[in-house]
């Protein structure tokens, strides 16, 4: 089975270029004529993930793999880690700084939004050990691919 893999570097605090990886993945999926709703879900997850790394995570990477059945997006960083994952998954819980809030981020929607849009999500993190978010999107024959 053909698997296409892409990986991107995410730079800490680079707000200007944050989102580039998601835009490229979005363009890729458009050329496959995927259902716009599915593309949008993937793009939202990618963008939120990239933003999380840029804001909290130090340097990181986004890797993306796609085959005929599913897409897997993995975002990892070498940042401070999430002390309480359960809490971080709650809508509205935020540790963003004032600077982030001034830019319109930090509403405490990031991880919850990713959970909402991905078909499956695993968040692994330990204090001081960085964070790894792995998301799966199923490409079902009916709704996924037009």
């Amino acid at each position, binding site marked *: 089975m*053909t698997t*296409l893999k892409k990986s991107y570097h995410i730079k800490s605090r680079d707000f200007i270029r944050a989102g580039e990886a998601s835009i490229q993945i*979005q363009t890729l999926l458009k*050329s496959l004529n995927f259902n716009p709703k599915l593309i*949008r879900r993937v793009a*939202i997850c990618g*963008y939120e993930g990239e933003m999380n790394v840029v804001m909290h995570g130090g340097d990181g990477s986004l890797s993306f793999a796609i085959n005929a059945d599913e897409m897997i997006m993995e975002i990892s960083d070498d940042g401070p880690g999430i002390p309480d994952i359960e809490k971080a998954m709650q809508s509205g819980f935020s540790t963003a700084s004032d600077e982030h809030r001034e830019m319109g981020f930090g509403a405490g929607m990031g991880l919850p939004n990713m959970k909402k849009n991905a078909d499956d999500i695993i968040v692994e993190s330990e204090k001081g050990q960085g964070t790894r978010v792995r998301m799966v999107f199923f490409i079902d024959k009916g709704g996924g691919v037009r």
Partner: protein
Amino acid sequence: MTDIQQIACFVHFDKSLCNGHATCIRACPTKAIRMIDKRTVSVVGQCIGCGECIRVCGAGAVRATAAETGSVGRDHVAIALVSPVLYAQFPGVMPKDILMGLRQMGFRHTIDMSYFLEIFHYATEEFIDRNRESNKAPWPLISPVCPVVVRLIANQFPSLLPHVLPVLRPAALMAREVKRRIIPYYHDSGDAVALYYINPCPTKMNPNCRNSQKQPDIHEVALGINDIFPQLAGHIEQIKNSDAIPFDQTRYEYETCATGNASMWAMSGGEIAEMDFDRSLAVSGLEETITYLQKIEMGLFKDIEYIEFRTCREGCLGGVLTAVDKYLAKSAVQKMIKLFGLGRRLTRENILRMYEKGQFQTEKSPAKLIDLYGTKKAALSLESLQEIEETMELLRGTDCAACGAPDCRTFAEDIVRGTARLQDCLWISAHSTIKSKRNKREITMTVKDLVERLGLQVVAGDKGLDRRVEDGYCGDLLSEIMGNAPAGCVWLTIQGHQNIVAVAVLRDMAAIIVTGGHTPDEETLQKANQEGIPILRGSESAFQLAGRLFSMGVGKSLEE
């Protein structure tokens, strides 16, 4: 029309003027343009009429499909639908004088847009107000006013089509009103009528275009502001200079321009400035528009209610078919706003009554828009996507566009889709040409060839004349030669003692050329005959001979 290729609905390319700089190819937001066979530019994808190709072409080879102005009103009733941008082209001139100038040009009616802008304002406010409660449409709503933006969305951001405000845009309201109220009047009396859209951009599709299916019962013509500008300027000059301006009888309320709102409309931000809600944005410029659309698609700007997009910088004032620079025009608009003030002529109640009846609803559904402007390319498979990635690795990735595609990725996609060949890449084809030339030379270039082509005298080592020459080297310091001379080279030196033969043998050289007319020692010649190393004598200097050898291709380093 022989040189002009009629290939798109909005623009055409003049082959005789094209300088092959490929700026249009790179500027096209839908990557629709390709250069085929050096200077034949062709639209292969979906043109959305943004006019960027016209803007960036330094040679003036791209033009909008526009009509002749000389025949206005000659054998028909000409009705001008005037974009407010026109008023900004004549600083210090009153809109009414500009409209009168148009009438002197031969237009029977000149329809000003301000009346319809107000209708649009009310309808938009109403829709947004209701949407706050019903949440039927997703936030942010996107202005439908710039048709290029709507087409861009249909082509590249189809998931955003539900965001487009489903209210008829002012130009459409205007055309509908004219068709309903003015044209029937003339049709009843048997007169032919033509509608002229006077536009700052090529967005009005050429009516003869293959894409517009229905046969129009009314003759519709698109005119660029720059097409009519010279003639109109002449008439306006006359009007300004005549003392007694004849009282101008207009029949319909929308034949004059009354408020500053209309002129403001031409600027970026002019659409939202006077509207009755706070959370709105105005974005102008093609790149900026695309960036914002990408972000909306990723779920951003949900807290904004309405975004006014214009693909031209500074708004419609920056349209490619304007006659005056956008910043001068902007200043003219600002002065006009100061003079007229802002305000509305119509009352909300009247418009709301029509709104209730659904009079301002767009007739174009998202499905129809995708049908008209959506990408016509077949979907790629995962395998072909992988093939594209692999092809990308062969290319240099500098997006030079010399192949005729806008960038390396698109070129790779064209190759995989079968519409381009890898050899179309200049870098790849140059590389393979040099390589094949070099291979040829490696087979054919021998010491004998050098003797013949450079007119050298063979003084020893005839046996080795068919040795292959692969490189060249100059020098007279033997230890340096021992250290550096490449194998298979021809060595240029003025030394004539017998040690040169030993060096040539040890370095596995093809031949020695003794330059500057020097004659090698007798022992040297004997040794060379023994070893089969040809010694050639040339009267020219090492510098001259090296130059000639190099131009023959000897020693050209071909790897990067």
